[in-house]
């Protein structure tokens, strides 16, 4: 399984996804695939199921029907492979207020990836947290905490990244820097799926539009379309 990826490989493929929540259909008959070297933005108004879709792709949410494939095979047969190869960063990214940025980063990657301590320090420097790397995260601002969470992306080796509201609380410079980081990653062949509230200025971005459902049930069908 370690041969290099081709552009044509389908890393993740969803077929006929349907998700219902509290008796209301969020989306139905949703099909798309995530291929290497692409950036996909999940779009839709509040409450249209963007976060839910990312959680389904990550394997956190079980309340859906349809089929998800990993590299062409049903995902449920390869859970260990999927978990290792898909990085999910939720809008609550697992940062502990009582731990320092360095300890947080260490604990977060400990089970996934062998990373020398030196790299962790460098990553924190790179996201502008260097001077605070030994201060408890509770003392940092919301934007700084977000930077700590995103520092993982500087050395993460997973081919698929699922980022939920990754830009929240970041300042303008940081947003631009993260966009550059994602573009680089995509150029190398990584696949990024994300939700953002601002329109990122990135070329070749694919879109999955979720219509948003009204009180009465499914109003629009979601379609994956490529710009």
């Amino acid at each position, binding site marked *: 399984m370690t041969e290099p990826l081709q552009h044509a490989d389908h890393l993740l493929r969803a077929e006929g996804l349907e998700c219902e929540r509290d008796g209301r259909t969020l989306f139905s008959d949703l099909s798309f695939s995530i291929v290497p070297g692409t950036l996909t933005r999940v779009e839709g*108004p509040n409450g249209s199921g963007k976060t839910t879709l990312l959680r389904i792709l990550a394997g956190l949410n079980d309340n859906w029907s349809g089929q998800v494939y990993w590299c062409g095979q049903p995902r449920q047969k390869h859970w260990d492979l999927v978990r290792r190869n898909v990085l999910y960063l939720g809008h609550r990214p697992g940062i502990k207020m009582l731990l320092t940025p360095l300890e947080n980063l260490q604990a977060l990657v400990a089970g996934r990836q062998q990373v020398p301590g030196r790299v962790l320090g460098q990553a924190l420097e790179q996201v502008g947290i260097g001077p605070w790397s030994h201060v408890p995260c509770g003392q940092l601002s919301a934007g700084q905490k977000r930077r700590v969470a995103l520092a993982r992306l500087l050395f993460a080796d997973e081919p698929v990244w699922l980022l939920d509201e990754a830009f929240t609380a970041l300042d303008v410079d940081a947003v631009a820097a993260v966009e550059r980081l994602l573009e680089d990653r995509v150029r190398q062949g990584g696949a990024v799926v994300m939700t953002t509230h601002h329109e990122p200025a990135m070329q070749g971005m694919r879109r999955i539009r979720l219509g*948003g459902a*009204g*009180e*009465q*049930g499914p*109003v629009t069908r979601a379609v994956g379309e490529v710009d």
Partner: protein
Amino acid sequence: MAFDSFSAFIIMEGHGPYVWTCYGVFFLLMALITWLSVRDRRRVVRTQQREQTVASPGQTDTVRNERTGGGFQRIPTSQSESISKS
């Protein structure tokens, strides 16, 4: 019949109160389960009947229109108006 008379059956040599309380509560709770179940069924059916008679074909369209975005327009109250005047 294990008893000589009806009153002997009721009294049961002094154990009557215990035995009859038990049977009374037994039938009471059995009736309670049945009543609760029937009430639940009635409730489900009634709310559903109401929904089905109220629902009309045009409804979904209005809902579709209502649920676009929201304009976040400020709502004038008497207080805010007096501030803007002064």
